[in-house]
């Protein structure tokens, strides 16, 4: 097995370091993008590059905005309760 193959396989057998910090929330972004792209791939009647990208970006932005609004609302509730 070549060194490169070994290194690639090693990457998938050792977990990454992910701290319990606010920055770890950024892992949400690639997942939201994936959800938006796959969902739009099943919904659009015809896949055309420009319109597909535009619709996926709009859905991606909607997901992020909604999650931000939810986070702020939950923070507000937590602030009121504690």
């Amino acid at each position, binding site marked *: 097995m070549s060194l490169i193959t070994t290194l690639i396989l090693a990457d*998938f057998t050792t*977990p*990454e370091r992910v*701290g*319990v910090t606010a920055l770890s929330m950024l892992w949400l972004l690639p997942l939201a993008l*994936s959800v938006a792209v796959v969902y739009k*791939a*099943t919904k659009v009647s015809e*896949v055309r590059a420009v319109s597909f990208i535009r619709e996926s970006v709009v859905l991606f932005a909607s997901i992020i905005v909604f999650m931000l609004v939810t986070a702020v609302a939950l923070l507000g509730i937590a602030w009121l309760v504690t």
Partner: protein
Amino acid sequence: MPPRSKENHIVFLLTVGLAGWLIPGGGHFILKERARAIIIFAAIVLTFAMGLYIGSIGVVNPVTGKLAYAAQIMNSPAVAAIGRFTKGGDYAVFGKPNEIGQIYTSIAGLLNLLCIVNAVYLAHLKETERARA
């Protein structure tokens, strides 16, 4: 092309569903929806691979993570092969990497399930339209 018989129609729908499970986007590829198939394949494989990269193959565990495994297996039967490696507990992973890795791989599986259902529905629609024409 003449419409398929009812039995052949069911076999065709099952084939489309099975192809979508074997390879993400495979169902759409059979339906000649090439662009859709490529997008689905790339997005689902990248999401699943990213989950394995973050949490290691230990996030796929049919013994300790049964619920997540039920969603992960929707990606492809290849997940079962990973599960055979990890069920012994040699690749145990804990904390945030486990959490994020399981979320990524499970969501990828559920997205593939959505695509399988969509491919089968498209196949049924195409067949119905062909029968009407």
